[in-house]
């Protein structure tokens, strides 16, 4: 049985919530889909202990409490069919038809391989935040945070708030870059305030720049990490290493729909026009999916698409100006926190590159292209469907896995066998 929506929004983070509430406010019947049980995406993930910030509550309410919005939690899009999307929730297949589609599929963390990265206790930086918010016990645990950018501060603050002992923050950017970044921040006063607040929350936690965690050690779980700092190497005993090197837009659904993608650096994002429209006529994209831009651009772009989808022009120009300013912050960030080349080379030949199939990096030597490497080594053939290893390999300047066949995520066979019309089809 197909469900039909005027506007179908995929992803209920800031961008998706803004799109849904804007479209619903202008009369559209909206379907809002998210794989998580609650709305908020990553940045506004519901914290079991602390809830969500007031801003998040307001935006979630604006969408979810609007009677025009149907909330579809724990629902994942699996494939695209004529005029609609095949999805599945915890129980069954859903066939979602739409007049307009808004992709707010966000971004995932860039997880780069290094010796010991598969040990229990090694997580992403955003990963540790997500785990903390969903109730992972961190009280009293020793946490090291490493990687690049303001996400480190946010992760460290989050860990501390959940009772962890944050031993240190290791930022790979050098001191000079940090100073230049800070000097340029005046254009975004809210960011200055946020940065100052985070630093205050992290008083007493050592913050080292030009520093990289080069290896994690342990037997059954993480025991200590090895750090290369400007003045030499050290080892730090810890329970968790939260290592985050940036974000990668989730473009798989866009790619499957045939939307034009563009790469800035190693990773693709969806191309959109001034109204957030993609190259496919009734498909929009907003937020991180269009390039990592942060929460503010996500909210603005969601609103733009929600308005555009309902043919509303009022307020559009102002939103577009605000978007330029918000996106400029993302550019400022990107320019200063670009990864030092040696971070892409932390992995040793024996380091696993594909965690699903346990493929070491050296196994990929000597193959001309991604397909050949995949067939010979099974790299990318596991349940993550190349999301982790593919992003890492792209960042490392090696292959990129190209095509996008269904299913978009591992999906129940029953879902794939279900039909939009529920008319009995011949079984043989």
């Amino acid at each position, binding site marked *: 049985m197909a469900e039909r929506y005027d506007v179908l929004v995929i992803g209920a983070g800031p961008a998706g919530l803004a799109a849904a509430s804007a479209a619903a406010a202008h009369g559209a019947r909206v379907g809002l889909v998210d794989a998580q049980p609650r709305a908020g995406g990553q940045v506004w993930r519901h914290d079991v202990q602390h809830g969500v910030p007031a801003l998040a509550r307001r935006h979630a309410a604006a969408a979810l409490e609007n009677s025009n919005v149907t909330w579809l939690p724990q629902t994942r899009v699996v494939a695209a069919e004529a005029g609609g999307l095949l999805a599945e929730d915890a129980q069954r297949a859903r066939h979602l038809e739409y007049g307009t589609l808004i992709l707010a599929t966000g971004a995932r963390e860039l*997880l780069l391989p290094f010796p010991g990265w598969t040990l229990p206790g090694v*997580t992403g930086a955003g990963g540790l935040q*997500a785990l903390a918010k969903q*109730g992972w016990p961190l009280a009293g645990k020793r946490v090291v945070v490493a990687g690049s950018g303001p996400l480190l501060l946010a992760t460290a603050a989050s860990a501390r708030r959940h009772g962890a002992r944050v031993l240190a923050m290791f930022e790979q950017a050098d001191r000079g870059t940090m100073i230049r970044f800070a000097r340029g921040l005046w254009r975004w006063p809210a960011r200055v305030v946020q940065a100052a607040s985070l630093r205050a929350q992290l008083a007493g936690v050592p913050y080292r720049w030009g520093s990289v965690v080069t290896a994690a050690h342990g037997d059954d779980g993480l025991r200590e990490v090895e750090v290369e700092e400007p003045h030499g190497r050290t080892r730090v005993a810890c329970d968790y290493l939260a290592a985050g090197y940036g974000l990668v837009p989730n473009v798989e659904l866009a790619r499957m729909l045939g939307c034009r993608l563009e790469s800035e650096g190693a990773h693709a994002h969806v191309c959109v026009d001034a109204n957030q429209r993609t190259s496919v006529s009734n498909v929009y994209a907003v937020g991180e999916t269009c390039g990592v831009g942060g929460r503010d651009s996500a909210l603005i772009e969601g609103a733009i698409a929600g308005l555009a989808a309902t043919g509303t022009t009022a307020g559009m120009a102002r939103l577009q100006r605000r978007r330029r300013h918000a996106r400029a912050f993302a550019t400022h960030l990107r320019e200063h926190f670009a990864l030092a080349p040696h971070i892409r080379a932390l992995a040793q030949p024996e380091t696993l590159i594909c965690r699903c199939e346990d493929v070491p990096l050296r196994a990929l030597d000597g193959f001309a292209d991604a397909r050949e490497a995949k067939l010979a080594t099974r790299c990318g053939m596991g349940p993550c469907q190349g999301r*982790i290893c593919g992003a890492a390999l792209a960042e490392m300047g090696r292959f990129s896995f190209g095509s996008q066949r269904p299913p978009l995520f591992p999906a129940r066979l029953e879902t794939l066998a279900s039909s939009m019309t529920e008319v009995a089809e011949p079984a043989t």
Partner: protein
Amino acid sequence: MTALVQLTVNGQAVEVVAGTSVAAAIAHADQAFRRSLSGERRSALCGMGVCFECRVTIDGVAQQQACMLPVRTGMRVVTDG
């Protein structure tokens, strides 16, 4: 007053706040998640349903991503650790 949820992880009784994920409950029980192909112990990595390292068996159904599911009363979680 937050509700508490009782479940079992590898037969061990665990009690957590409602809304906690199965992955977090497994961590509360100090259990591992899965064994990789070459026998390595693995635990949650991304926390957001992308890496598939946190797969466990829940109420008899295998390959469930623990970080994507909130706990339910009486849930039986079996891990491969």
